[in-house]
C-alpha cells in the first residue's frame, strides 16, 4: 500500500496541535512536571511511574534538547518515505510484514559480511544490553562495568542480585582497561562502552583486542559486551569496530544502535553481532517481536546509505568542533570526543549548570557520579542550535564568548 505525501500531511492539523500540547511539560525532578515555558506554569502532575520506566523528558517548543545524545535531524527523507509506505502493514506482526524483522537482520549481516546467525535485533540496543545481563550474570557471576559509563547494565544486574565491579575511568576519561581486566576473573559479563558514554573517549582496536584476550585467558566463559552505540561518529583513524573480533571469538558481543547517527532513537531498533553460539544463547532472551514494523522499514532504508552517514558524521564533527572551541577558549577542559556529545570540566556542579541552562531553554545531560560536581555532558545539536547554546553557556558560566561565525 502506498500512501501519498499529500495524504501524509492532510487532516493532521488537530493531531499536530494536540501533539504539541502534550510536549509542553517536562519533569523537573521528583516526578513533578513543570510547564516548559517557565516554572510558574507548573503543571504539577506527579508521574513518577512514567519516569521510572525510563522515558526521557520531552523538549518543548523552542527548547534545545542536547541532553540525550540524540540526532537532531532524525533519520531523513528516505526513512520517512519508507515509514509512510509501511503504514499499510501496521496491522501485521513484524515477522509477517515486508520488509520483515528477518529481512533487516539479513541486510545487516550482508552489509557487514557476516552470516545472519551472527546477528540479533533488539528494541534499541538497550534490550540487547539487558538481555546480556540476564543471560550472562547471576548472583555468582558478577558484572564488570565502569564508573562512569552507561548505567543500564548495572541497574539490571543489581535487580538480579549480581555483584557489580565498576572501576573508575582514567584521568583522561578513558575506560581503565587494566583495572577492568583485573576485576574480570569469574565474572559473567564485562561491559565495555566504546566510545564511552559519558566521557566520549575511545580505545583503539588493538587495545580492545588485547583486553579481550586478557579477560578470556583468565575467564574464557566471561562474555565481553562491547557497546558501539556511537561507532558511526568516531573520527579517530586508529579506531575500528570489534565486529570482526566478535564473530570469530565466542563470548564477545558487539552492540550497535539506530538511535544515534542513524537518527532513530524514537523508533527503537538496535542490533548486535557475535559468534553464532553466543548469539543463539542471546536470542533466547529476545522479546518475541522486539522491533516494530516502522522501525524495521526505516532501518532498511538507511542502513546501507554511506553517503548520508558521511554527511551526518561531518555535520556532527563540525558542530562539535565549534562547541569544543568555545569551552577551550573559556579555559575549560574537554575530553577527546569521538561521539555526538562532549564531556566538559565546567568547574562547578552539573546540577547548577543544568538548571542555569534550563532557565534559557537549553537542556543538557544528567549527573554522572563521581564527576557530578565538576563535569557536564552536552550533546551536539545542529550548528545553529550549538551557536545559541554556547551563548547560553557563556552567560551561565560567566565567561567571555566570542562567537565563531557559522560556516
Amino acid at each position: 500500500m502506498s500512501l501519498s505525501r499529500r495524504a501524509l500531511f492532510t487532516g493532521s492539523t488537530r493531531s499536530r496541535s494536540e501533539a504539541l500540547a502534550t510536549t509542553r511539560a517536562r519533569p523537573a525532578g521528583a516526578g513533578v512536571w513543570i510547564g516548559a515555558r517557565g516554572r510558574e506554569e507548573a503543571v504539577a502532575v506527579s508521574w513518577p511511574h512514567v519516569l521510572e520506566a525510563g522515558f526521557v523528558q520531552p523538549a518543548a517548543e523552542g527548547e534545545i534538547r542536547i541532553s540525550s545524545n540524540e540526532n537532531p535531524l532524525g533519520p531523513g527523507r528516505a526513512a520517512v518515505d519508507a515509514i509512510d509506505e509501511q503504514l499499510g502493514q501496521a496491522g501485521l506482526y513484524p515477522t509477517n510484514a515486508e520488509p520483515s524483522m528477518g529481512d533487516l537482520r539479513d541486510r545487516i549481516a550482508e552489509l557487514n559480511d557476516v552470516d545472519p546467525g551472527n546477528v540479533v535485533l533488539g528494541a534499541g540496543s538497550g534490550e540487547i544490553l539487558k538481555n546480556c545481563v540476564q543471560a550472562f550474570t547471576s548472583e555468582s557471576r558478577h558484572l564488570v562495568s565502569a564508573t562512569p559509563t552507561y548505567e543500564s547494565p548495572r541497574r539490571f544486574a543489581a535487580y538480579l542480585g549480581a555483584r557489580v565491579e565498576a572501576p573508575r575511568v582514567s584521568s583522561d576519561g578513558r575506560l581503565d582497561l587494566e583495572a577492568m581486566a583485573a576485576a574480570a576473573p569469574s565474572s559473567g559479563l564485562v561491559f565495555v562502552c566504546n566510545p564511552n558514554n559519558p566521557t566520549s573517549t575511545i580505545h583503539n582496536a588493538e587495545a580492545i583486542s588485547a583486553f579481550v584476550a586478557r579477560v578470556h585467558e583468565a575467564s574464557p566463559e566471561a562474555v565481553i559486551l562491547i557497546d558501539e552505540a556511537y561507532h558511526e561518529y568516531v573520527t579517530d583513524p586508529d579506531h575500528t569496530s570489534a565486529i570482526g573480533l566478535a564473530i570469530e571469538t565466542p563470548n564477545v558481543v558487539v552492540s550497535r544502535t539506530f538511535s544515534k547517527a542513524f537518527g532513530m532513537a524514537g523508533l527503537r531498533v538496535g542490533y548486535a553481532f557475535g559468534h553464532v553460539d553466543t548469539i543463539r544463547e542471546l536470542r533466547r532472551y529476545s522479546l518475541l517481536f522486539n522491533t516494530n514494523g516502522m522501525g524495521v522499514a526505516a532501518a532498511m532504508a538507511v542502513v546501507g546509505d554511506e553517503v548520508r552517514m558521511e554527511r551526518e558524521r561531518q555535520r556532527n564533527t563540525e558542530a562539535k568542533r565549534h562547541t569544543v572551541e568555545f569551552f577551550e577558549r573559556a579555559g575549560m577542559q574537554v575530553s577527546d570526543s569521538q561521539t555526538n556529545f562532549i564531556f566538559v570540566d565546567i568547574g562547578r556542579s552539573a546540577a547548577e549548570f543544568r538548571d542555569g541552562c534550563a532557565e534559557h531553554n537549553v537542556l543538557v545531560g544528567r549527573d554522572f557520579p563521581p564527576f557530578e560536581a565538576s563535569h557536564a555532558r552536552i550533546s551536539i545539536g545542529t550548528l545553529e542550535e550549538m551557536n545559541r547554546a554556547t551563548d547560553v553557556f557563556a552567560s551561565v558560566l560567566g565567561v567571555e564568548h566570542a562567537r565563531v561565525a557559522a560556516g
Partner: protein
Amino acid sequence: MSGAKVDTTKRPRPAARETEMETSILTTGLNRRAVLRGLGAGGAAAATLGLHGCGAGSENVALSEEALPPLLLHNNENPLGPGSRTLDVMRAALGEGAPAGRYPFAAGARDLIEAAAEVNGVATDHVMIGNGSTQLLRTATHVFTAPDKHLVMGAPSYEECPGYADLVGHPIVSVPLTDNMQFDLDGMAEAAKGAGMVFLCNPNNPTAALLSADAVVGFVETVLGNDPDVMIFLDEAYHDYVTDSSYASQIPLAVNNPRVVVSRTFSKAHGMAGMRIGYAIGVPDTLRRMRNWHYGMSVNVLALAAAAASLRDEERLAEERDRNTEAKRYTLDWFASHGHEATDSQTNFIFVNTGMTAAAFRAGCGEHGILVGRNFPPYENSYARISIGTIDQMRRATAAFGEVLGVSAVA
C-alpha cells in the same frame, strides 16, 4: 464434540518451543516465501479461485499471471490495520522525520497512559506500557514466578508465559482443558496453591472460548482464598472482539486487588500488531514490582501516539468488532454446513474440527497460498486455528478449505 478425542489425563507441555520455532522460521521470511513458491507450483488452482472466490471470469486470466498475495490467517492479525484517524496521528507524530530522532518522550507515554486510564475509568498510576502485551506477560512471569514459585496455566493457551518460565527455569503446571475445551478452573485453582502466578487468557487463545465474568471472579476468590500470595494475570488480548454478554473485563478487579493484573494489546482489534504496543492495569505497587525489572524503552514514538488515538476512536473499534463478527459468522456457517464443528468464538479466530491433522490442513491451505494456525496439542490431530480476515478474504479461504477438506466449494 465430534471426532475430537481429547485425552484429559495427559498433561501436555505448553507448546512454547514450537512457537519459538515457528517465529524463527517466520523471522527468516521462509514461511511466507515458501507460500509464494507454492503458488508458483499450484498457481493455476489458486488463481482459478479468484481473489474473491467468485468463479471464473476474464479477471482470472490476469490473476493467473501474477501470484495472489498470501492470505495470512495464522497470527490473528486484524486484516485492515489501524483506522484512518489513527494513521493520521502517526503521520503527524512522524512529521518530517525529526521527531523519530528523539527518544520516546514521557509526554508520549503520558498521552497513552491518560487515554488508557480514561477509556477504562481508572487512575493513571494504574497503567503500565509494554512492547505488545507479550513483554508485559514476560515481565510478570519473571517477577511473580521463581524456581520455587510455579506458573499455572490452562493448556492449550497462549504460550508466552510458559515459554518464558521455561527459559528462566521456573516450573510450570499445565492443567488440561475440560472435554468442552473450557478451562478446568477447579483443577487450576488446586494447582495454584503455592504458585507464583496463574496465567488466564480470556477469551482463550487458541480455543476462542470465553469465561463469564462470574466464573472469573469466582476463580480469583477461590485461588486467593486458598493462597493469598498468588498473582493472577488475566490476558484480555481479544477483549474488543467479545460479543457474549456474560463477559466483562476484570479491570475493575485489577485496580482494587494487588494480586490481579489485566493486560490488553493493540495488536488485535486496534490493528497494530506491527507497532508493538500494549498495556497492563493493576494497582500501583504491583506495577512498580513489574517496572523494577521491565525494560521501559521498548516502545516507539509512533506507537505511543497511535495507541492513544486508537483507544479514543471508539467508533472504529465498534466497526471493527462488527466486521469481524460478520466475517466470522460467514466462516463458521461454512464449516457448519459441511459438518465441521467449531467452538463458540469470542475472538478474531476460530478453532474448528477439520477431521484432519492441523499439519495436513495447514499444508493443504499452503498450496492455495493461505496460512493458518500452528499446532495446539493435544488437539493437533483434528483442530485448526483459523484467523478471521475480511469477508472477501474468507470467501477466498473457504473455497480453498473446500478443496483441502474434499467438500464442494459451493455451500
